[in-house]
């Protein structure tokens, strides 16, 4: 069995991520899950769009397709359907997936193409310097929401559930064990698996939103993550859910008909 | 010799299929050249449908129909839209029960739809009757070629009906056009 380290393209290091960025954690958890699957590097392809998260495939020692902004899932659909024997993993971000790529996102979930999509949701456009994205919380500061975001944010995991993905989970860069396990479950589930990872962008989000230190951001994720089971219990009791909480855990695991499953 | 044939009628009469069949007859069974075109677009739905074919012994260079020699008109609207400007030396076969106007050029009255209903029991083969009449009256392709082309393009199980329609068309064409 390989270890996560075996999958790294060491001649590409060091990476471009800022100090304190959560993306490295997500990559590490993903590679750990893949190593645990016993997958071969020669049979695995990473696909991504544009943004910080989408740079991840460039650091992984497999065939990899770093594509255009928002289009990763459409490219990945072509790879997987043309050659179902390949394992396909997509790295994407909130802007890439939910803004410019929103249409491809819902249709990939609807088709339920057999691939695993890991979305690093840092609630901001990081690479371009901190503009508001479709997941920037209402009221949050960004360079394009200087008076606080006036728009409602997308719940990406709920969107994937509604659109038909076979497996949907959400964790954070703090919950590394749970995240690794969720990605592994996603890799094992035929059809489209969507794992949303709330992750910290200290440079472009925390700095503008009263979470100056990385530890503040981690602490925020830790204290605002609400287990889906607990949320359901609170709801059934009629207990109000505190403001600013987001659900984590497994939102759905099902067996809708899938495309591109290895024959 | 280059001959340009235009069919027009309403949607559902098999106008386009007729012209494709005529082109197939020329190109596949008569050793001739054919270029078939048709009108596309929303105006072709519900309203007048139109398709044309150029048939020649030599390769067809310019592929568009400019001045048809032969018209087959199966609806009044088709006449008004695609038949009314027929040149004087053209020949026009009209479905006499459906087209009320008559052109300035020579016209052959073929009661194709009425005949298909009365004699053959199926209105749907009116276009095949027209094809037969067209071939009998103009010789634009051989009778043998059109028969083969009709039989290999109609749904299985309808061959006999279509053959009868074609034969009836040959007779009507001979009578109506006084060859």
């Amino acid at each position, binding site marked *: 069995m390989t270890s996560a380290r075996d999958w790294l*393209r060491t*001649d*590409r290091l060091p990476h471009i991520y800022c100090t304190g960025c959560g993306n490295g954690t997500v990559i590490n958890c993903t590679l750990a899950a893949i190593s645990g699957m016993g997958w071969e*590097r*020669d*049979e695995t*392809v990473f*696909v991504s769009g544009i943004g910080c998260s989408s740079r991840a*495939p*460039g650091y992984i*020692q*497999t*065939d*990899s*397709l*770093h*594509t*255009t902004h928002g*289009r990763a899932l*459409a*490219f*990945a*659909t*072509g*790879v*997987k*359907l*043309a*050659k179902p*024997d*390949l394992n396909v993993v997509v790295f994407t971000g909130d802007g890439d997936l939910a803004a410019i790529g929103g*249409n*491809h996102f819902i*249709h990939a979930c609807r088709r339920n193409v057999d691939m695993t999509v890991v979305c690093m949701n840092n609630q901001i456009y990081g690479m371009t310097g901190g503009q508001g994205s479709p997941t920037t919380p209402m009221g949050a500061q960004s360079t394009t929401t200087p008076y606080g975001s006036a728009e409602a944010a997308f719940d990406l995991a709920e969107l994937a559930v509604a659109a038909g993905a076979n497996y949907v989970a959400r964790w954070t860069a703090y919950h590394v064990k749970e995240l690794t396990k969720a990605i592994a479950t996603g890799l094992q589930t035929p059809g489209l698996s969507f794992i949303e990872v709330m992750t910290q962008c200290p440079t472009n989000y925390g700095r503008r939103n009263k979470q100056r230190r990385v530890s503040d951001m981690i602490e925020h994720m830790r204290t605002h993550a609400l287990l889906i089971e607990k949320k359901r219990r609170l709801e059934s009791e009629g207990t109000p859910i505190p403001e600013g909480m987001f659900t984590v855990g497994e939102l759905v695991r099902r067996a809708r008909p899938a495309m591109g499953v290895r024959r | 010799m280059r001959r340009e044939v235009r069919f027009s009628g309403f949607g559902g009469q098999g106008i386009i299929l007729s012209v*494709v069949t005529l*082109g*197939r007859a020329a*190109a*596949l069974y008569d050793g001739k*050249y*054919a*270029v*078939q*075109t*048709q*009108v*596309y*677009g929303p105006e072709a739905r519900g309203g007048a449908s139109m398709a044309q074919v150029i048939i020649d012994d030599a390769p*067809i*260079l*310019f*592929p*568009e129909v*400019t001045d048809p020699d032969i018209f087959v008109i199966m609806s009044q609207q088709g006449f008004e839209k695609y038949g009314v400007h027929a040149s004087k030396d053209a020949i026009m076969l009209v479905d006499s029960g459906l087209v009320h106007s008559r052109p300035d050029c020579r016209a052959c009255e073929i009661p194709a739809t009425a005949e298909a209903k009365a004699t053959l029991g199926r209105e749907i083969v009116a276009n095949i009757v027209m094809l037969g009449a067209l071939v009998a009256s103009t010789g634009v392709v051989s009778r043998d070629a059109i028969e083969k082309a009709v039989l290999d393009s109609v749904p299985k199980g309808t061959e006999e009906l279509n053959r009868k329609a074609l034969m009836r068309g040959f007779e009507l064409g001979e009578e109506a056009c006084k060859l």
Partner: protein
Amino acid sequence: MSRIEFMQGNTASAEGALAAGCRFFGCYPITPSTEIAEHMARKLPKAGGTFIPMEDEIGSIASVIGAAWTGARAMTATSGPGFSLMMENLGYAVMTETPLVVVNIQRGGPSTGQPTRAAQGDMMQCRFGSHGDMATIAITPNSVQEMFDLTAKAFNLADRYRVPTFVMSDEIIGHMRERIVIPDSVETVSRPPLAEGELPFAAGDDGIPGFAPFGTGRHVHVTGLTHDERGYPDTTDAEAHDALVRRLYRKVESARREMADYEVTNPDAESVFVTYGPPSRTVQQLLHDRQDEGVGHLRLRVVWPFPEFALQEFADAKVFLMPELNMGQMAREVERHVDQPVIPIPKLGGELHTPAELASVLEAHR
């Protein structure tokens, strides 16, 4: 056994693709190209290929690029509005040297324009439509037979040069039916393989790197960013960018003699028509009717890269006349290469110039 059929141009294009071994088709329906997708939807699964209706043309070309990297011959078909949507990813395909074929059944533009009428208004777009400098290949059929032959050929050009290749047809040729001979097999050229120990984006003298499909253990990193020979991003080094873009440009432009495909009629003529696509048939008709050796005709089948040397075959030419179904797009290219006057003869609206119309322009310039 070859077979003879009476077939529509769009169907013939799909048949040519199947004969060439196309095994992936990403689709979004658009008039007047849709018959190609419909034919592939029926035939491709039976040939062991994949047909996938995508959510838009951005997705369809993206899926085609993804499929091409698995080693499959992959294509899509579209028309103007869809072609416009594909531009960004076509630039990506140029940058990543992804072989693929796009059949564009051109219709009247700009915008939604005339969905059911022919035009040749995308001739510059297929060459310059995506941002940045690039070179692509475009071929222009003028018959149903050529829809088959040139679509098959497009896959060879795409694979040989590792560049998106466009079959720039139009509603006239796409929708007409003619007699066609479908051969038993067509000649195929493979992608140059990536040699052992060679870097995935290192090119030899011809400027074309070897190709290693995904899943063959070469761990190729493909990116639209400026990259080095390993395929790794190198986005700030001026020399690296200069070298890459010049190579991508030159590998196509420097091969224009080897891929040239044109017909010359009456090379001693003083008045010369230059055509591509269906206007060539009007000129052929005119020349056939007049039997006048004073009128020449250069008919291009490969339009990009532009074979400027073909114009030199008319040593006595005094004027070049260019009937196009656009405002004179390729006339500007011809103008660039000759000293003689170049007369654009634009025709818009969906119909061909008639032989009489061309004859009157010819007389006016003799």
